[in-house]
């Protein structure tokens, strides 16, 4: 496997000296998606914020492209790492294109003007997420699913080697969830970029990640490995403190209900 683009060593993350997650050792390589799962309050977002450099590590270290994060000037960091979190925005009259263009921020001059090359990169990012036809629409008028794709295009335009995502699919309907993860898979398939994303939907973590990090309620890593290694009923039950059999009864019941539905009446012979 190629060298890790992002690595943490014995990382302790938290606010104002209060540790929320500790002894975190994870790594993300180019070409892979690493999913961060765990119950609410386990520190997924805090961990992502620390990896993004918004919070100082309380202990341990984060290495980006082999260098300690604290040694990076922020502007240089932004050319390697892109961050996409759910947050309050004041986009007002901004078009989708305006939003995606801001992905070029680390590359533009003092006034942020785009060169023709930048415009081309923005065009390709829009195509990549299937938003070209929406490029002149007002960002605020889009559906949640379209907004997430536009924000993903912004990150693509940033040309990072590592992309951090905080629960990017949480508010999306099933169509947009699938669409979003398909774009993500396509993005890493070139082997240029790695993704670290926190996610609530276990089935999505299973579907797209090459490795899964399980962060327990007390902020420790319970498991770190391929989905096949990690996803046992035992681990999930422990992680989310579920009653034995509850998970299986829900998902199993749901899936068999779907199977029971005849696909089309006239084909039933």
């Amino acid at each position, binding site marked *: 496997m190629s060298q890790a683009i992002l690595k943490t060593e014995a990382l302790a993350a938290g606010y104002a000296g209060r540790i929320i997650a500790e002894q975190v050792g994870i790594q993300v390589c180019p070409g892979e998606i690493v999913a961060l799962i765990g119950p609410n309050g386990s520190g997924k977002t805090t961990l992502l914020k620390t990896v*993004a*450099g918004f919070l100082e590590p309380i202990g341990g270290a984060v290495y980006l492209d082999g260098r300690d994060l604290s040694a990076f*000037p922020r502007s240089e960091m932004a050319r390697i790492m892109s*961050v996409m979190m759910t947050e309050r925005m004041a986009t007002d009259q*901004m078009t989708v294109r305006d939003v995606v263009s801001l992905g070029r*921020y680390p590359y533009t001059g003092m006034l942020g003007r785009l060169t023709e090359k930048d415009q081309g990169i923005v065009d390709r990012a829009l195509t990549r997420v299937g938003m070209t036809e929406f490029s002149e629409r007002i960002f605020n008028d889009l559906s949640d699913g379209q907004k997430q794709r536009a924000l993903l295009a912004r990150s693509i335009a940033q040309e990072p080697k590592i992309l951090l995502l905080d629960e990017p699919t949480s508010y999306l309907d099933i169509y947009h969830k699938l669409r979003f993860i398909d774009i993500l898979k396509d993005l890493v398939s070139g082997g240029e970029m790695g993704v670290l994303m926190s996610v609530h939907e276990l089935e999505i973590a299973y579907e797209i990640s090459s490795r899964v990090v399980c962060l327990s309620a007390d902020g420790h890593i319970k498991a770190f490995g391929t989905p096949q290694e990690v996803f046992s009923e035992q681990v999930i039950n422990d992680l989310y403190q579920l009653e034995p059999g509850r998970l299986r009864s829900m998902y199993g019941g749901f899936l068999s209900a779907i199977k029971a539905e005849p696909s089309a009446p006239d084909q039933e012979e």
Partner: protein
Amino acid sequence: MKKRTITIYLLLGLALLALAVLNIHTGSVSLSPGEILRIIFTGDRSQQSGVIIWNLRVPRVAAAILLGGALSISGFLLQTFFSNPIAGPYILGVSSGAKLVVACVMIIMLGHGMVIGSLGMIASAFVGSLAVMGFVLAIATRVKTMSILIVCGVMVGYICSAVTEFMITFADDSNIINLHNWSMGSFSGITWSNVRAIAIVVLAGAVLAFFMSKSMSAFQLGENYAKSVGVNMRAFRIKLILLSSVLSATVTAFAGPVSFVGIAVPHLARMVFKTSKPIILIPGAFLGGAVFCLLCDLLARNLFAPTEMSISTITAVFGAPIVIAMLIRRKK
């Protein structure tokens, strides 16, 4: 740049020129256009007409342009800071805070037979602006609702105005009449040395604001995003507050508190330019504010001539309905 943007800049430029000419032309002493042109191009101040043009009308027009622009940019910066289009130096009480400190300093200085210079006025106003701004920010850390913050700002404004009026009423000096006019808002009585000080502070502030437009556009996509691309949020916030305070303080120092321009003009600019890009809106708001204040000053001087109305009366008549319309539209 888009065609639309250039067209609107040109139209605003033309409106600015036309209104400036109109403002110089009209007044209680009527002068023929030929006479005005002669005076402007020869700089002749030997007759009374020359004195009226050069020492009264031209500096007043210059002040309206610069202060109108300053007020709009000040509002735009505060709106960026609060991520809310309904923020401005007047509505948040900042202008009234500036007014209070300037009035205090003036009354004390006059009482000791001293005169306060242009920069001293700006400095006093700046202190008052920052004091109220600090108070508003302290409230902002406790309440996250913008409407409550605005109500608090309006209340602080009332308190400051009340104290100012109280002091003016009981201060005894022949300059009190001027002080009273000023405390209601007016572009009258501005001298060339005032204009020089205004030009330096306002143009420097406007240029600095313009060069913040890149980080402002990143901040429009959220604080975390701005941080992630390298905006130092702490420095960014401090710069926004200091710049907007300096700009609105300059306005208050010379023209008193001028209402609603800081909210209405940036909003109109967003609508006509159809964009949220600070790099377009900052120059646009400056031009728009200049045009708006020239028009309002023209009306203030001439609607009921020879009686002159306070500038805030006129700006409120045009500005307040725009703000109400904004509030209603946001609720939808």
